[in-house]
């Protein structure tokens, strides 16, 4: 039984890694087409780095990911705090709204944001589809995830700690800053990391909300792939796989130190 499980696991891991390994191998392959390895080369990486557009797309991706993560972490953390601490009218509605970006297919979310921006432009003359609308779109799905992650952390905290802080004379903001936030920090960090990953991975929402000049790396990969398989995309993909591995290892190391 155990042997069968091991064999099964081995095959599934092979299934998971084979496609990525092929891409990495091909990124060093001299031949332009096919999988026959004709010789080792770094030409595709050179071509990639010499293309000024790729740097621009990379910077766009970074601006979108960092900008949206910053805003969504702030909004989501506050919202989680409010949802856990207070009762107020409309709380039930808010909790259902939080699940919409989590469960609704990306394509529906993409087109609904596109409609929003189109209606708004019709009525108020802004916003034009640009990097800004992409960031607004990313924040929208990130806020939901950050809120839910931080909220589950806050629910685990002992409310007695905040009471103790108040008994010792801390005011509302002091309690938040010196007691609640440090205790909630692992949740906030996990939420931010999740938001960052979601933003870097997103193609669909970006696809519908991006205007001219707002090309990100996933959009670039998509349009290149539509034109046919290209070794430059292999090189770019290899770099992204490497970066993902690095950040995942980093996140893993950080969470291991978490209490």
């Amino acid at each position: 039984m155990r042997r069968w499980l091991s064999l099964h696991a081995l095959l599934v891991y092979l299934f998971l890694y084979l496609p990525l390994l092929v891409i990495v191998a091909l990124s060093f392959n001299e031949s332009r087409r096919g999988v026959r390895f004709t010789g080792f080369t770094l030409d595709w990486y050179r071509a990639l780095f010499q293309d000024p557009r790729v740097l621009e797309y990379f910077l766009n991706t970074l601006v979108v990911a960092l900008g949206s993560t910053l805003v969504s972490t702030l909004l989501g953390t506050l919202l989680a705090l409010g949802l856990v601490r207070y009762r107020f009218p409309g709380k039930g509605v808010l909790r259902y709204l939080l699940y919409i970006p989590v469960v609704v297919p990306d394509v529906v979310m993409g087109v609904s944001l596109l409609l929003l921006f189109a209606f708004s432009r019709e009525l108020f003359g802004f916003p034009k589809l640009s990097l800004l609308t992409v960031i607004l779109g990313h924040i929208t799905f990130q806020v939901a995830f950050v809120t839910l992650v931080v909220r589950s952390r806050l629910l685990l905290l002992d409310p007695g700690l905040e009471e103790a802080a108040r008994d010792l004379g801390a005011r509302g903001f002091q309690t938040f800053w010196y007691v609640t936030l440090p205790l909630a920090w692992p949740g906030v960090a996990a939420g931010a990391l999740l938001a960052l990953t979601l933003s870097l991975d997103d193609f669909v929402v970006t696809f519908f909300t991006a205007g001219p000049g707002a090309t990100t790396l996933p959009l670039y990969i998509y349009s290149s792939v539509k034109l046919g398989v290209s070794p430059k995309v292999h090189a770019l993909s290899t770099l992204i796989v490497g970066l993902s591995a690095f950040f995942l290892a980093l996140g893993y190391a950080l969470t291991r130190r978490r209490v």
Partner: protein
Amino acid sequence: MNEAATPFQRLFRILVTVGPGGLWLFLFVLLPTLLVLLASFLTRGPYGELGGPLGVHNYARALEPVYLEAFAQSLLIGVLATLLSALLGYPLAFYIARHPRRNLLLFLLLLPFLTNFLIRVYAWLVLLQREGLLNAFLGAFGLGPYAFYPSFLAVLLATVYTFLPFFVLPVYASVERLDWQLLEAAYDLGARPFRAFLHAVLPQTYPGVFAGSVLVFIPAMGTFVVADLLGAGRVVLVGNLIQQQFGLTRDWAFGAALSVFLMAFVLLALYLYARIQGERGLEELV
């Protein structure tokens, strides 16, 4: 909890914490959803603009056989992808949970998953193309080359590949919480391994299996990218139809109606899931 605070302070704190995020969700989640609903009753103008007359014509059109077929295809992809993920992922979750180096195995499971979605789909295109690895492999035996893509099978394969961890992780979470004493009790009562598994282990993993199924089924049904790249026009899912209406065809009203149908379907699936699992179940989806 906030006995010390005056009503005014309470109101202020609620506004500061819930205000910005709540406003955001209202403006960017609720409002767009309502706009999709509104647009689905409008009509496409001669230049692709939205306008009157109001009516249910978009919904009537969405029920035509061509479009129903796309719905059927999406449903089929969703169901088959969920079944295949269960077949691959369920035993894997047990293997990982019982392994001494389970953290490393989880890391290895997540790594391809955190690689950009588009690259994961693209990798299959490279594998399955005419000059790809699979044909090179088969060629060594004097077979092929075959046109593995574009095809329904290629779309299904890449869909399973991209969403598999969504199934493994929740099942893994249930396996971690498993009460193995029940299994021993089953053995003590004379159950054979299969029967013991069926009655003492399997039911304990149902929450994970349900959560995993929802997490694979919904995105598998709703995606357009996989079918776009690996179906190349031959496999048309609802997602592809929606993308076409908001892209080249520029019939936003019809696209909105299709989106409403897709959303209704997803919400129905979630409602059924919530009925089985309760609200805690919904929280575990994140």
